[in-house]
């Protein structure tokens, strides 16, 4: 099939600032659940250098990796797509990518994104690295939908908000709609106290007061920026309410709605799944973790169908 004859894949990014919150485990299991629902899915490991999704999936490291694509050992990113034990699931590995993510050039990033958008699948799931570096942010911001993963701990929630703030401003700054007003935003942010700007919502309000054009540009720039809030490893009733609380906080602070807020329970079986190098949704499909990931997959599939029908 030629590129223009098929619909382009939905790009979903899994990020969230802090390391060790279970991003890769969630991305892997979500990818398996999507594939098991019949969607051709590519799981792309953009955790340059630290990638080990093949281990979580229990498959050999694919012959070619994202690093080979960047080093031009292969021409197309799709050449690096390796098959897995799960039908419809393909892996683009980030393993052995010696490039430091911080050194990824803008042109390389754009090239990777261009190729990601043309992968011959229905969904591309990006497992982003930890941190809020520009590379991680740019993939998160470029995706059709960003999943922000945290755990019910102060450090993780703090990092998640730091990440979201950075992504929000990156999105505003990088949007073609807002580009004519970049100088205005810089000026407003430099003198934020004088302008009474404390929250992103304030910035948007002050910008809107400047002119209707600026307001429209901001709204267009943020259109579709509706992250999915995922809180992993929840145990207490207050943990389970946290995603919904965070959604409310984000609505007030950023003035944006979230697509969904999801609680994924802590589950002892997960350790066994990781140790046996087999995704939990395959090994323990009835476990609370697997059920929650399955529900998340169904939600995302429904949203995708709704947005395709509306498009």
């Amino acid at each position, binding site marked *: 099939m030629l590129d223009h004859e098929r619909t382009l894949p939905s790009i979903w990014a899994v990020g969230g600032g802090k390391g060790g919150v279970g991003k890769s485990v969630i991305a892997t299991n979500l990818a398996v659940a999507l594939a098991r629902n019949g969607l051709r899915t590519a799981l792309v490991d953009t955790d340059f250098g630290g990638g080990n999704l093949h281990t979580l999936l229990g498959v050999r490291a694919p012959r070619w990796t994202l690093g080979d694509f960047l080093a031009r050992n292969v021409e197309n990113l799709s050449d690096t797509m390796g098959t897995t034990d799960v039908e419809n699931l393909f892996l683009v590995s980030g393993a052995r990518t010696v490039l430091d993510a911080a050194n990824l050039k803008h042109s390389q990033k754009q090239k990777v994104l261009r190729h990601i958008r043309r992968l011959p699948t229905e969904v591309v799931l990006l497992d982003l690295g930890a941190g809020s570096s520009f590379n991680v942010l740019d993939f998160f911001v470029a995706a059709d939908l960003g999943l922000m993963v945290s755990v*019910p701990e*102060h450090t993780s*929630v*703090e*990092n998640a*908000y*730091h990440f979201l703030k950075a992504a929000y401003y990156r999105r505003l700054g990088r949007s073609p709609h807002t580009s004519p007003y970049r100088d205005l935003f810089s000026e407003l942010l430099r003198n934020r106290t004088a302008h009474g700007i*404390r*929250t992103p919502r304030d910035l948007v309000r002050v910008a809107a007061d400047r002119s209707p054009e600026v307001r429209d540009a901001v709204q267009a720039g943020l259109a579709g920026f509706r992250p999915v809030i995922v809180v992993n490893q929840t145990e207490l009733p*207050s943990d389970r*309410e*946290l995603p*919904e*609380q*965070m*959604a*409310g*906080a984000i*609505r*007030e*602070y950023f003035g944006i709605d979230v697509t969904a807020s999801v609680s994924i329970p802590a589950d002892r079986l997960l350790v066994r799944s990781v140790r046996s190098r087999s995704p939990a949704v395959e090994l323990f499909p009835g476990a609370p973790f697997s059920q929650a990931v399955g529900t998340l997959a169904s939600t995302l599939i429904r949203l995708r169908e709704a947005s395709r029908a509306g498009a």
Partner: protein
Amino acid sequence: MPVPDPDDLATLGLAPGATLGDVHRAWERILRTWSPDSLATYGLLEEEERSEILERLTAAHRRVLAAFGTTPTEPAAEPWEPGDGLHIVLEPDSDHEPGPFLRHLRTSRGLELRAIEKITRIRPALLAALEEGDASRLPEPVFVRGFVIAYAQALGLPDPEDLARTYLEWLETRSG
């Protein structure tokens, strides 16, 4: 009966058609979300911003309740789990009104307002207003309640809820 403004409902995280029960549940969640010791807003904002957002939410809540033909009531008491702070059995009495009582406890332990700020993330100016019982510098009673509870918990008081009740009564007599 007027219908609640959809924007106000959205502010409370509710869709049009929400029942009064939905509004109550949403408001309880909002109070938990924006309480000074909330995990859901940790690292997100300064106390001033918290107060501003709370004012906006409170106003929306009042308007929605008015549309239902009712007014705000005190939130239901939440179960208090003792922290690992030092437990003491002092209680506010005629010698110690609740505000000065908090200050007395704090200073008797050699604690600066900054130390309490570190635990509660409540601004020192606001903590001082709490100790003085200066209603003109304090937000709505429901939020004062949250601040007093956070302060009392930080000091390891055995019953922060009870102190908060006493405190609000005291504040009312002062401003009234």
